[in-house]
């Protein structure tokens, strides 16, 4: 099986689905690159190189470069999806949902319900999110909690190249609108990715580490951090379940509750802001539906209630680190040195 980077797995999925489905179109800023320049369309595939080669293969009618107008990008994607196309729209940074949130929140997410179920909007909004590259307060955020709170949207957060391809293909073939969140710090992550067509059903968490002492729940970049913490703890004889949610909406409640029923201890790790976030969401789920199984206070490991800072030292202090996850597990187990 080929080993490739997450960005390549995403690019591969887009190429394969464009080939398979003639109704699929892609649009966003610089998804082609070089439009209207002396150098000409370069098919560079955007600043993230995830749409590389699509234009050269499928042309301007299906690979649409847009002005810097995110509301019009999402609106146009929505209008096309309502009228017969399948659409993948790209937001260069998830932080830019700020300039197009109405189209995501009040339009795309609500069409089907407002119209009494008499419509479909097969739209995937890819957005690049997350901290770790010193992009500062307006280019480093993880707004998945806001998006998860919006009824009508599905929210997918792959953590490996394999999942990225399988989940993206599933998202594109889904008839509901799907937010597909790609962590910028994971684009270079390598892993095995099958060449053939496969999908991963949306809504199923994956157990990436198994162990009965405590349950660690995470998404995206935090999955790797949690696994590192779990491995360090394993060396100390502490065995953790590490659950990669893969999608936050739908949420695999069963997987979370089953694990906590076993371990009695929950550590939620999240890269989003601490207030009204995914960590509290899962703590609420467990403290209402698996309360009797809980043996210790729920631990939530998140950034502080601040914007994302720029400088390396500050961003590192902002982001949850494996050592903090490890300490939280130890606290949950009532161990020293926590």
């Amino acid at each position, binding site marked *: 099986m080929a080993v490739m980077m997450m960005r390549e797995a995403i690019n591969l999925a887009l190429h394969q689905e464009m080939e398979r489905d003639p109704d699929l179109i892609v649009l966003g800023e610089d998804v082609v690159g070089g439009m209207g320049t002396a150098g000409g369309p370069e098919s560079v595939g955007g600043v993230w190189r995830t749409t590389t080669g699509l234009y050269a293969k499928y042309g301007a009618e299906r690979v649409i470069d847009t002005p810097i107008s995110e509301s019009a990008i999402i*609106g146009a994607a929505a209008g096309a999806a*309502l009228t017969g196309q399948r*659409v993948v729209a790209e937001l260069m940074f998830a932080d830019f949902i700020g300039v197009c949130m109405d189209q995501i929140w009040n339009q795309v997410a609500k069409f*089907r319900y407002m119209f009494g*179920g008499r419509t479909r909007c097969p739209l995937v909004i890819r957005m690049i999110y997350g901290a770790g590259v010193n992009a500062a307060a307006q280019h480093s955020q993880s707004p998945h909690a806001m998006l998860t709170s919006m009824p009508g949207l599905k929210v997918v957060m792959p953590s490996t190249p394999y999942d990225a391809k399988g989940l993206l293909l599933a998202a594109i073939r889904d008839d509901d609108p799907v937010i597909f969140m790609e962590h910028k710090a994971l684009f270079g992550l390598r892993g095995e990715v099958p060449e053939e067509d496969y999908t991963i059903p949306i809504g199923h968490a994956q157990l990436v580490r198994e162990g009965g002492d405590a349950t660690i729940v995470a998404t995206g970049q935090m999955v790797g951090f949690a696994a590192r913490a779990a491995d360090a703890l394993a060396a100390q004889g502490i065995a953790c379940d590490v659950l990669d949610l893969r999608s936050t909406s739908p949420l695999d409640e069963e997987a979370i509750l089953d694990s906590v029923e076993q371990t009695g201890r929950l550590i939620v790790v999240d890269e989003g802001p601490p207030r009204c976030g995914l960590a509290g969401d899962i703590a609420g789920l467990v403290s209402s539906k698996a309360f009797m199984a809980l043996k210790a206070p729920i631990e939530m490991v998140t950034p502080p209630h601040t914007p994302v800072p720029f400088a390396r030292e500050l961003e590192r202090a902002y982001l949850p680190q494996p050592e903090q996850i490890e300490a939280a597990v130890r606290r949950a187990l009532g161990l020293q040195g926590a």
Partner: protein
Amino acid sequence: MQLSRDALKQAYRQMKVIREFEERLHLEIQTGEIAGFTHLYSGQEAVAVGICEQLTDDDRIISTHRGHGHCIAKGCDVKGMMAEIYGRATGLCKGKGGSMHIADIEKGMLGANGIVGAGAPIAVGAAISAKRQGRKGVSIAFSGDGACNQGTTFEAMNMAVVLKVPCIFVFENNHYSEHTGDAYAVATASSIAGRAEAFGMRAWHGNGCDFFEVHSIMAEVLAYVRETGLPAAVELDTERFFGHFEGDAQKYRGPGELDRIRSERNCLAIFREKVTAAKLLEGEDIDAIDAEVLAEIEEAVGHARQSPRPDPADALTDVYISY
């Protein structure tokens, strides 16, 4: 282009259905039976009908918070609409949407919309589909003189020109956005149409209270857009006969303004006068249509009143296709 007697009757009929639908709602709302915010289209009928009579199901429109007229003109079922506004299970949206969210995608009606300015970008997307589907279809975004100031509307115009898609931006200038006059809120060198032209698209400007003027301008616009596949804009001056929403005291109107526009700027009266003067239709033809329409509206209200209310359990359905 000369319209046949049947086409004239049909056009008048559509305008009359909208007018009576709204005038009746204005009364029904007093009874307290109708919930929520309702924005009436009375006065603007010539715009919706002058345009939509020239469209097919391959052409798509997207509307605003003041959507009843566009829905009726584009062929939405009047009974289903009335039932929706009454919040009944038989409504076009099963009572989930209400006045501001009536839609019928099959008919090419992409929805009334409660967010001012949200429609134009969506219309650009429908135009992308139209271009790909190659059936010479167009998409039309209806916007008001207030919506033309929303950033989304400008983004959509720029993008439509950049992408070379058959999208028509229709600006219904009824001179008010809620309580505020366009003379205050809309900054232009010439007109709303002029702002559209600055994006490099062709733009037209006309009297939206005269069905024939709307119809002939739009015949030209549609021919141009279907032919070239390029976007265009049209500004139509019209009048809003009621308040912004039901319950608006309209202190902002000038003395006698409402009487004046209802008499001098009444698109139905103007139509009747023109077709009878030109002997295209007889007064009786029109009286007959008026009678039919009143009956149809009466029936729609009866249907709505007798329709079952939604089952509370249905509040949970239609969020996703599968979840």
